[in-house]
């Protein structure tokens, strides 16, 4: 395999790396947003959110992946036998815990006044959250969200411990095994990671800064 073949081989892993990170990111939004609001506005059950966050921020994701894939996967091949599912599941839950914390800071930044104003016009608590808080919370979260996304792209590399997911790192390992070249594939891999991380994190930040300007922060 010459270097170009190596590079193309690695590039073929990009869609998989992107889909794992994007799906995990979306799962993280879907979990993190409601959890952040629950933690702030539903005090009685906020301890459960806290527990969830501690678990998923405290255990290495590689351990969770192995546990779910080889442990649960043996008993419940559907869905835990699927490496792709386990990857998105673990990274999504971990990201949910991180994002919950990011959003919580953002909610405080948006301020309780906006909630009160929402309720003053007759919206319920959760509808004020949806119509007034959520749009602003995203704006307030952007620098943090950008790094969270970058983190997911990087952490998607952990799936090399699960068999059969041919994303960038798994491919780099395979190339090393078949060619004995243990430098080029990893350097290419590193460059590809940087190339796909930067633009996305950067455009998220730019979007946030533009919105912040409009909102007047």
């Amino acid at each position, binding site marked *: 395999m010459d270097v170009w073949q190596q590079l193309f081989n690695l590039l073929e892993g990009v869609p998989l790396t992107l889909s794992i990170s994007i799906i995990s990111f979306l799962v993280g939004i879907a979990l993190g947003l409601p959890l952040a609001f629950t933690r702030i506005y539903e005090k009685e059950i906020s301890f459960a959110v806290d527990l969830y966050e501690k678990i998923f921020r405290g255990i290495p994701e590689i351990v969770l992946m192995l546990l779910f894939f080889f442990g649960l996967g043996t008993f419940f091949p559907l869905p835990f036998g699927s490496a792709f599912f386990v990857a998105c599941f673990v990274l999504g839950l971990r990201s949910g815990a991180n994002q919950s914390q990011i959003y919580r800071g953002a909610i405080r930044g948006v301020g309780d*006044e*906006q909630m*009160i*104003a*929402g*309720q*003053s*016009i*007759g*919206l*319920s608590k959760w*509808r004020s959250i949806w*119509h*007034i808080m959520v*749009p*602003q919370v995203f*704006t307030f979260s952007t620098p943090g969200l950008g790094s969270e996304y970058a983190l997911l792209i990087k952490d998607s590399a952990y799936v090399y411990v699960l068999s059969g997911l041919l994303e960038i790192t798994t491919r780099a390992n395979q190339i090393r095994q078949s060619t004995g070249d243990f430098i080029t594939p990893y350097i290419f891999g590193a460059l590809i990671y940087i190339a796909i991380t930067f633009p996305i994190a950067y455009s998220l930040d730019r979007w946030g800064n533009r*919105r912040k300007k*409009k*909102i*007047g922060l």
Partner: protein
Amino acid sequence: MTDCVMEAKHVYKTYCVKGEKRKDVKVIEAVKDVSLQIRKGDIKLIFGPSGSGKSTFLRCMAMLDIPDKGDIYLGDQSLTAKGVDLNKARARIGFVFQHIYLFRHLTALGNVELALRQVLKLPKEEARKRAIAALEEVKLTDCIKKYPSQMSGGQAQRVGIARAIARKPDIILLDEPTSALDPELTGEVIDTLRDLAHEGTTMLIVSHEMPFAKEVAEEMIFYDEGHVVETGPPSLFFNAPNTDRAKQFMTRIINRTTRE
């Protein structure tokens, strides 16, 4: 059957705040036994020293803060009873905030439209028409597309008023609508309020704009240390209030206004 639009009966509200030391708890009695009746078309004005609990009382009226004791009525309906749909009730109460609190991510039009669409559930066209009508009423048709950050304080507060009146509430509660504005901007907001007064809008206003009070208020309520000290028509306060505290406060305020 009462003919009151809103009524407060013996309302109490205390706050517990942490003191310097960890175990210190300070109890602030922000509202102590306040009762008040507002009939259709009434304009009542609450005034009094800073920190006396005027905002707290107004928030209790709209149930944005829940009173510890006492009752709030909206028409015949008790809002302090168990199981009341407070969101429905608040849809019938307009609220204007001292610090305006416009929805920052929405334009002027969006701010006014939101309740019409999401609370009254009006169809899009109708909501837009009514929102624009409300913005016309506060003379703000030229900045319907602007975001709050792009408006002057006076414009923002008039959007705040439009947001409160657009759904045609039974009453509007206004908490010092001009006190956060530069003096040269208060005029335009006062003009808007005067227009509303002449249209017969029912209003309970916390304000220290004395000439305005004299002109439109049926009744002025002097409020100090969590309760109503003295009540009467503007002529009473401008000539000879009965209580010393009201007398002192009026002198201070009138001196301040003439100095400016």
